[in-house]
């Protein structure tokens, strides 16, 4: 068989036209890109007020009961930051704060400031944990909740390593990845999250961002809010009031 340049260019041309027709006629292009390639919408945001939190740990206890969280694991927990006059930052969270906090052992005069920081899954706009899952077991729901399908999870714990907030753990009972769901089941049933409901000082708030008259949408507009580790690019959806620069 004789190969020449003219023949090669002619065949390449037909191949190009043919594959172009195939992609357009059979709508393969839109399948490759997805319908509009739209990511799920983040319809909800969580607001934590570190200026009113009293560190009673009722949120941690309620979360455990509501979601059957095994002992020594936490979907939410409360950290106490104690910043001393010499600049050192002490963080403690005994039992995740579930049993409350004992007074710190530092001299009163050595303490510059001290406060509680409740933590939970940030249900990020661009969650790393979802991107790394090799089996499609963790995903962003249509409402923007980051959830785990425990029937599909194979327990590889990639997501635990990917999460910059250490929000995930391996459930010792189900042996799959577990994390805060922002009480997805309660939200879908018209309730608020268990931790939000029991908080005695209203330091936690979960609500829609598109509800103009809702408390969350109003706070997002009116207050100066911070997020944890913005530099990771995950675009977290838990916003903090009064977060100090020492908090990480």
């Amino acid at each position: 068989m004789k190969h020449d340049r003219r023949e090669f260019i002619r065949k390449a041309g037909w191949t190009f036209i043919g594959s172009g027709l195939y992609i357009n006629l059979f709508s393969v292009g839109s399948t490759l890109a997805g319908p509009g390639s739209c990511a799920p919408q983040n319809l909800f945001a969580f607001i934590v007020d570190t200026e009113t939190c009293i560190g009673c740990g009722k949120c941690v206890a309620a979360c455990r009961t509501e979601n059957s969280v095994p002992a020594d694991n936490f979907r939410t927990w409360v950290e106490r930051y104690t910043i001393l006059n010499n600049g050192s930052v002490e963080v403690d969270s005994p039992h995740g704060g579930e049993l409350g906090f004992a007074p710190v052992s530092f001299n009163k005069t050595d303490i510059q400031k001290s406060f509680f920081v409740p933590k939970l899954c940030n249900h990020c706009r661009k969650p790393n944990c979802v991107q790394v899952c090799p089996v499609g077991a963790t995903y962003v729901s249509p409402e923007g909740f980051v959830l785990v399908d425990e029937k599909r999870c194979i327990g590889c714990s990639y997501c635990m390593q990917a999460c910059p907030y250490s929000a995930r753990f391996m459930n010792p009972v189900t042996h799959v990845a577990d994390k805060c769901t922002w009480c997805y089941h309660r939200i879908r049933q018209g309730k608020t999250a268990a931790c939000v409901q029991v908080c005695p000082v209203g330091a936690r708030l979960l609500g829609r961002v598109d509800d103009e008259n809702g408390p969350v949408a109003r706070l997002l507009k009116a207050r100066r809010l911070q997020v944890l580790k913005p530099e990771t690019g995950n675009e977290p959806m838990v916003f903090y009031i009064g977060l100090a620069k020492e908090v990480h």
Partner: protein
Amino acid sequence: MKTYDHIIRFTLLIIVAIIGFSIVRAYMVPDSFGMQGSYTYAYYRAESADEQAALPPAYQGTEHCADCHAPQASMLQANAHAQLDCESCHGSFKAHNNNTKDRMAVGDTVDACMLCHADLRARPAQFPQIESFAAHVAQQGDELLPGMTCATCHDPHAPM
């Protein structure tokens, strides 16, 4: 003379492999699994979200408790503890519903109250806090008697 047997055999083998793979895949992949808007963030089993949404809630809220305990609920909502929910102190409704004889006591009221009202540097300064139960009783000019708890002077539903 040319023979095409090897090509035919190979093609048949490939066809059998593709059919076998398709059958196994049809059994292994759940019906609702696939892309739900984005390969990166929403490639999952769609039924999973609805399954999770159907989980029964344990905490029901004060309105639910008020069905049977209206006096306590309205007292709570009219006083300094108005921001509290019944279940903040008493625990989840679910536990109570399984055993309605369980009085849902909060235990030793001193410990229960001190969970929020113990004096801690990390608490907001304007939040009411006491150093210890004994110190608070002394500060009020009262005598510390055996069996005395916070509830001796304060009704937890209407503390002030």
